[in-house]
């Protein structure tokens, strides 16, 4: 190759990656980063979106949100919903993974059960919401079984009484989300070297000791990263709550996403909704930074 040709080639190598990345960067820049800037701008404007020349509002909309008791209720419900979901996703996922990994069940049964235990994962949030509405109808099958067993004295309106609604949607979400943990932990379990357990057997370790001193520490990186991701994603849940309770009755299941949605598209207060959306963004970003630092530290 001549020198000219070689430098031409070098230039091509230097420019090429940017060309390959350009469509993606264009889309992410224009449709993700720009809208994020826009929503922050909206939150400082009066009548954002609705008027062509909105005036500057300062921190008014943030003030309005922080003065709104429904916002604080939504924040609390979001926390409850998210924490309970993550804790139970982890517990159930771990229990199922450990059971499936046991050498006490035969391999065919194990394979069948693994497929069946993953089932809830294969359904859309809207469909999960509809299924649970049918199950938890006052005249539905859950009430009729519980009545028969004498666990409840009369029909419970799970989704439409303020005392039970939040627990009911949380339960539905727990059911819907544990397979992510199960699948990841199962993969993790299969990666733990067998000699660890053999060495423990020689030392006469009991089953629970092996669980606490070998299995759980080995799975810790997976547990932490999935919990963080699950936390971030569960915090953003919208359709499940929207379809089952719509945030009601009397705000008892209002979460940040339904609260924001209603501000924007029921009361058309898009400025205040933007302020609320920015608050959600900040919480998510904080958790994301934490997640990325954790991933890098690994």
């Amino acid at each position, binding site marked *: 190759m001549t020198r000219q040709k070689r430098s031409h080639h070098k230039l*091509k*190598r230097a420019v*090429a*990656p*940017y060309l390959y*990345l350009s*469509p*993606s960067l264009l*889309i*992410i820049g224009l*449709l993700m980063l*720009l*809208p*994020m800037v826009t*929503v922050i701008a*909206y939150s400082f404007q009066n009548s954002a979106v609705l008027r062509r020349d909105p005036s500057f509002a300062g921190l008014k909309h943030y003030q309005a949100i922080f003065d709104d008791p429904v916002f604080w209720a939504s924040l609390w419900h979001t926390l409850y919903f998210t924490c309970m979901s993550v804790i139970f996703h982890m517990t159930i996922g771990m229990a199922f993974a450990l*059971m499936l990994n046991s*050498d*006490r069940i035969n391999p065919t049964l194990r394979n069948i*059960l693994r497929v*069946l*235990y*993953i*089932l*809830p994962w*294969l*359904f*859309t949030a809207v*469909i999960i919401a*509809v*299924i649970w*509405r*049918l*199950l938890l109808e006052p*005249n539905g099958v859950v009430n009729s079984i519980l009545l*028969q067993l004498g666990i409840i004295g009369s029909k419970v309106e799970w989704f439409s009484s303020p005392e039970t609604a939040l627990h009911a949607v949380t339960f539905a979400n727990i*059911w819907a989300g544990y397979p*992510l943990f199960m*699948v*990841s932990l199962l993969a993790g379990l299969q990666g733990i070297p067998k000699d660890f357990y053999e060495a423990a057997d020689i030392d006469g370790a009991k089953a629970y000791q092996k669980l606490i001193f070998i299995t759980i520490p080995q799975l810790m990186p997976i547990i932490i990263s*999935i919990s963080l*991701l699950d936390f*971030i*994603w569960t915090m*953003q849940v*919208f*359709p499940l709550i929207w*379809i089952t309770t719509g945030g009601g009755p009397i705000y008892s299941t209002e979460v940040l*996403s339904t609260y*924001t949605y209603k501000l924007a598209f029921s009361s058309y207060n*898009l400025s205040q*909704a933007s302020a609320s*959306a920015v608050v*959600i*963004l900040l919480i*998510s*970003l904080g*958790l994301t*930074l934490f997640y*990325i630092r954790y991933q890098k530290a690994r």
Partner: protein
Amino acid sequence: MRKRHTPKDRLITVALHVALAAGLFFAAFPIYWMLSSSFKSNTEIFALPPTILPKAFTLEAYAAILGDPVKLRFFFNSYFVAGAVTVLTVLIALLAAYGFSRFNFRGKGSLNTLIISTQTIPPITLLIPFFGLVVSYGIFDTYVALILTYLVFTLPYAILLMTGYLNTLPRDLDEAVAVDGGSSWTALWRVIVPISLPGIVATSVYTFLLCWNEFLFALTLTKSTSMRTVPIGIQLLMGQHAFEWNQMMAMSVLGSLPLLLIYLVAQRYFLAGMTAGSVK
């Protein structure tokens, strides 16, 4: 070797199987109930005591859904939008992943971090500016609005997934093309794409799934019945009819079929896509 004959040991095995059965009931009963209700009449669904198997098996709910052009349109819209987004996402993500996997360049690390962090941006935050944009560009209630917005959410994950896959492929292959005087573009299409099929399938499966499940943007950025997708269709069905539960369940079964089929046919790719973000 573990000893298997002590009574205590046998008791543990029995207890384990009881727990497995309880787990199975927990995981599968809601889905079984959806399926069996879709074959019942609306009155039988609430019969007392509940009938586990449909007593009077009927396909009337399916006939009602499949005979209604409005509902078929929901299905067409879902397939069309998810299909279009999948093709676009895979193409664009493949190019980006090739850039990430085969080149070193300034800003690579920060771009990678940017793409990882965009995965967790709350959809509700983007909804309001998207609504503003979509209305001002006059694409409210169109396929274009849905396809563009879905692309934003599918792309980051798809790029990470494809990059992960391309990194597993030996570099000698595309370097051989360079030695022969071929450009990186030639190497991509002649060498990389043909052997990347598993990665492409996993990415497509994941993208399709995400689009098929999307609710919030379909709810907000479309309005006319002819533009609605399956999830919105199910919600509409809930509002309109005086709770035709059997039809709702039939529509849910039909709406779940694509994902169930993909899972059964391509389980490996499905799991690869679903867990890629967490176990990278």
